[in-house]
């Protein structure tokens, strides 16, 4: 049901690196899961609007009250790389076109 190409394509969309072995295993497992949940297609949903949340709330509004923010040092304490109080990332726009 889910072939290797589909697995690779979905992994790419999810930005998930994957070994050759994992591609095979996930292909098989996802196929089994999707077969099992295929029953979903049998449900008669005519005239039903999709529900995306369970809170049954409409929008909640509150005053926008300015508050002190966290110190940059605190927020950067878990960062793997930083420079001048900024997150340091690898070049995004350089390299091969």
């Amino acid at each position, binding site marked *: 049901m*889910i072939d290797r190409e*589909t*697995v690779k394509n*979905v*992994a790419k*969309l*999810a*930005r*998930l*690196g*994957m*070994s050759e072995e*994992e591609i095979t295993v*996930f292909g098989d*497992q*996802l196929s*089994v*899961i999707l077969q*099992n*949940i*295929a*029953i*979903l*297609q049998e*449900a008669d*949903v005519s005239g*039903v*609007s*999709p*529900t*995306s*949340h*369970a*809170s*049954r*709330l409409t*929008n*909640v509004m*509150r005053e926008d009250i300015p508050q002190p923010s*966290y110190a940059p040092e*605190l*927020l950067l*304490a*878990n*960062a*793997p*790389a930083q420079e001048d109080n900024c*997150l340091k*990332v*690898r*070049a*995004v726009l350089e*390299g091969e076109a």
Partner: protein
Amino acid sequence: MAELYKLTIAEAGDLLRQKKISSVELTRAHLERIRALDDKVKAFTLVTDDLAMKQAQEADLHFQRGDAVSPLTGIPIAIKDVICTRGITTTCGSNMLKNFKPPFDATVMERLNAIGAVMVGKTNMDEFAMGSSTEHSAFFPTHNPWDLERAPGGSSGGSAAAVAAGMAMGSYGSDTGGSIRQPAALCNVVGLKPTYGRVSRFGLVAFASSLDQIGPFARSARDAAILLQAVAGPDSRDSTSSYKPVPDYSAALKGNIKGMRIGVPEEYWVEGTQPGVVAAVRQDIEKLRELGAEVSEVSLPHTKYGVSAYYIIAPAEASANLARYDGVKYGYSYRDTDDMWEALEQTREHGFGQEVKRRIMLGTYALSSGYYDAYYKQAEKVRALITQDFDRAFERFDVLASPATPSVAFRLGEISDPYEMYLQDVFTIPANLAGICGISIPGGFSNGLPVGLQLLGNIFAEDVILRVADAFERVTDYHKQWPEALAYA
């Protein structure tokens, strides 16, 4: 006096306020219990002894001064490692967050700290709360105190096991599809999933945001009421938290359920449910009838679609929520390349475990072009149908009663097929999809292993399900049983 670790929160609170015991003594008793047993149970990812003793001393000062205190002041509790604790490692059971120290407290932690609760540690869980056994923890599985070769359930298995083994008087977990109620059932403790929006999710590391709720584990309904009271209520930092007033849950435990209308969903007795579980829960429902409840059958016709809808919606939301783990801001980061895309893909390949990857893949697939309508949109419509089932049922009934799980605790390693593991949550998932509240309470034993009785209530009817749970406990002693397996551990 009984051993300190055997007290309930309500009992210990009385003794603390009467100054017959101190929080330091109470906390030390639980830390000793952890030292003696957790090598075998492995409920904790981190034991915070020093912090706990400091908090206990502070609590004792309040008692000595006669300050106004909360029923949780000085009470040793455990926190699932998915709830952010400021400056204290919060791993989510994942290598991705192995060394992550949150710069802030979750709202529930702020509230617990403000009333002087004592935190003894952070508890083990399936990675990012995805799983039903704690076997998907990146670090180690937790063992069921009732049989150390069996799983405690999950994903909040550590929180359930800690309370079952007397290593904490109560604990908090999170429930997205059954992650509080299923381990509570397997470990013979009370586990409550509140109504969506009753407890703030701020600082709860997100799995599936439209389903996640934080809730308590305890050894009695009364204790669960105390633990829920402490954290329930609105929070400006969670726009889905409700401003509906929070009732006094302890006051709702009146003991009388005469005339209470209890529905028994006929679809919750599916083939494959263990006969021992069915027998125990049927007997439990008879007890409720003897207590004066009006019991009759009800149909929730879309139940059979619950697991399928859930395994589209939850992974879809997870695939979006877990996109934040990019190795840039915090968490594990693959450093051995200069290429941005390679770093991103390698970070996620090495940082996530198998179950998390499986769900990210499933969710990404369901949301991808060409499949969105067939899977995600269809699942959202089925979700609406399941919600309507409950709306109709609660027009006629106050509470719905069923088994919490299809089986008693299974052996560690016994369930290797991912989909088979997903079926553990067949009776708990619908409540998350509909946003209603539910509780699992000790409902008897099958071959010496605990069986959970699930009571589902309408939205914001936590007081009602707690009242039924408490009335049931007054005529049963299942919740007072201690796991014998630990005595020989």
